[in-house]
């Protein structure tokens, strides 16, 4: 099957486009959608077939429809942002145009964010921060695609995408923005599942320091030991042990114990 080649745009051009977007801020966002292949946009010369303008327009329409379901173009609430992020990650993960290694390129995500979905990026991140448009783990859409890659429980799971909504922003960032972890989907998923189990016990609000300590410990452990040698159950047990140790380090106790300690005046 031929690879669908996606348009690319350089980071320097993204910055210029972002400045222009800032100058137009407040104008009619629907009118801000540019043509799909403006000057400066390139496509790999060989290796597959370039995505057609019709295919790109269809992808844009899919994304615009999704954004509309979550309030676009009206300024989104936090709940709308979260809802859009989870749905968008699922859309990106399953889209035929995004099924090849083209999605590993920053300049492809830069194109999607500034050219194809520009007004939607600006709607989702109203501050028009350049790092939401440039390629990289903070790119408005690449970050969601990376999350979907890391947090996918697999087609056979009835709760395939539940982790997308379960993890806090901090937890997702700790996984996705560390290439040593995000690059290994099985390890990333095992960490996310362990986070989820731990958060159910101690509460999400107390997980930030725990996650940071756990991720650091896992990264160090994986330098001296190939964790992928472990079967699923052993890997899960190892991850739980790391989170347990991190909870102890930060004196985070299970919720019931905390309530008891508080009631006794010793918590």
């Amino acid at each position, binding site marked *: *099957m*031929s*690879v669908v*080649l996606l348009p690319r745009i*350089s*980071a*320097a*051009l993204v*910055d*210029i486009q972002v400045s222009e977007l800032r100058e137009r801020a407040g104008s009619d966002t629907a009118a801000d959608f540019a043509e799909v292949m403006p*000057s*400066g946009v390139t496509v*790999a010369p*060989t*290796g*597959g077939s370039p995505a057609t303008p019709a295919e790109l327009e269809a992808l844009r329409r899919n994304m615009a429809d999704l954004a509309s379901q979550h309030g676009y173009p009206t300024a989104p609430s936090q709940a709308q942002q979260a809802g859009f992020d989870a749905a968008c990650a699922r859309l990106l993960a399953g889209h035929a145009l995004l099924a*090849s*290694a*083209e999605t*590993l*390129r*920053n300049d492809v995500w830069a194109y999607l964010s500034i050219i194809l979905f520009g007004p939607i990026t600006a709607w989702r991140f109203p501050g028009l921060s*350049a*790092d939401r448009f*440039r*390629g*990289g*783990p903070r790119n408005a859409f690449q970050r969601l695609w990376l999350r979907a*890659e890391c947090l996918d429980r697999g087609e056979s799971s009835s709760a395939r995408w539940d982790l997308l909504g379960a993890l806090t922003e901090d937890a997702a960032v700790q996984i996705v*923005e560390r*290439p*040593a972890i*995000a*690059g*290994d*989907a*099985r390890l990333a998923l095992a960490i996310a599942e362990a986070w989820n189990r731990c958060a159910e016990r101690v509460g999400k609000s107390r997980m930030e320091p725990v996650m940071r300590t756990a991720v650091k410990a896992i990264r160090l452990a994986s*330098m*001296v*030991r*190939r*964790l*992928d*040698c*472990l079967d699923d159950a052993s890997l899960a047990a190892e991850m739980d042990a790391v989170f347990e140790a991190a909870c102890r380090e930060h004196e985070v106790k299970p919720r019931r114990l905390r309530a008891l300690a508080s009631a006794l005046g010793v918590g």
Partner: protein
Amino acid sequence: MTHIAFPHLTIPAGEVDASDWILQDAAGRVSDLAAYLPDWDYGTDIVARRTLSVDLEAACAALGLDPAGTAFRVLVSVGTGEGSLPRRVRRYPSQLIKGKAEISIDLPGRTLSHRLRLETDIVLDTAGGQGSPIAPHESGARLWSDVVDTRLEGQEPRFPIELASFSKMFPGRSEAGALWMLHWAPGDPHQDFGGCVRLYVNSDSDDFSSRFLEADPLTLHTVMADVMTQMIDTTLANDGAADLLSDCEETTVGGQIRSWLDQAFPGQTLAAVRRIRETSPGSFRSQIQAAADHAGAD
């Protein structure tokens, strides 16, 4: 395996005989895995092969393990994608190594991008009796490894560089007349260096861009000095520079800046370097400039 302080003994390099990786494309053409793979695109499916031989008796002696009951496993992971560390890593099924292992990995072109990073590990499968308190005992303990990192497409240098026409990139703007421009966003030193830093070289200046592409030492030195000065100076201007840099991994922007600081100001504390920057800006820049001679833009 030189930068990690292992908590267990490892196999000395001399006890493993690892062949170079050999690549074969669909047309049957065979080549060594070089620093970059020219003429590669998504349509190029390749097979990577190598052999590994381990003297099990000697390896067990070095590890403090009884050969009876000790088994090793060989694992290969394939990394690909932009950045200092690969964006995506695929683990291939491991195999027990009984003296010699033949490794063959299919690499469909559509799954690769930017680079091909092949990491080979020999790990502990099961440990026989231990003759040393620091003998490896956990399944998966890394005992030996090597990594080969190859650029695909022949266009992705290790220091991200792009040749571009500044008159087209910056029409009507003053940057159009510059010879080069470093694109990076200060503020987050935890970002992956390869993924967020890019040096643009102005192709409108034939003379300069030719010198750059021909790796003229003086040209590279000058550009690298500017790159290093810019990134170090901007970072040190922040009062919290020490905190910012302390926790950065090697492959991040902060890790690279720390490495440059070590080269330019060996043995000096960050506070001392900041003092030089404030009291002797000329010396500060000269020392960075001198270090740039060794940094190279690859």
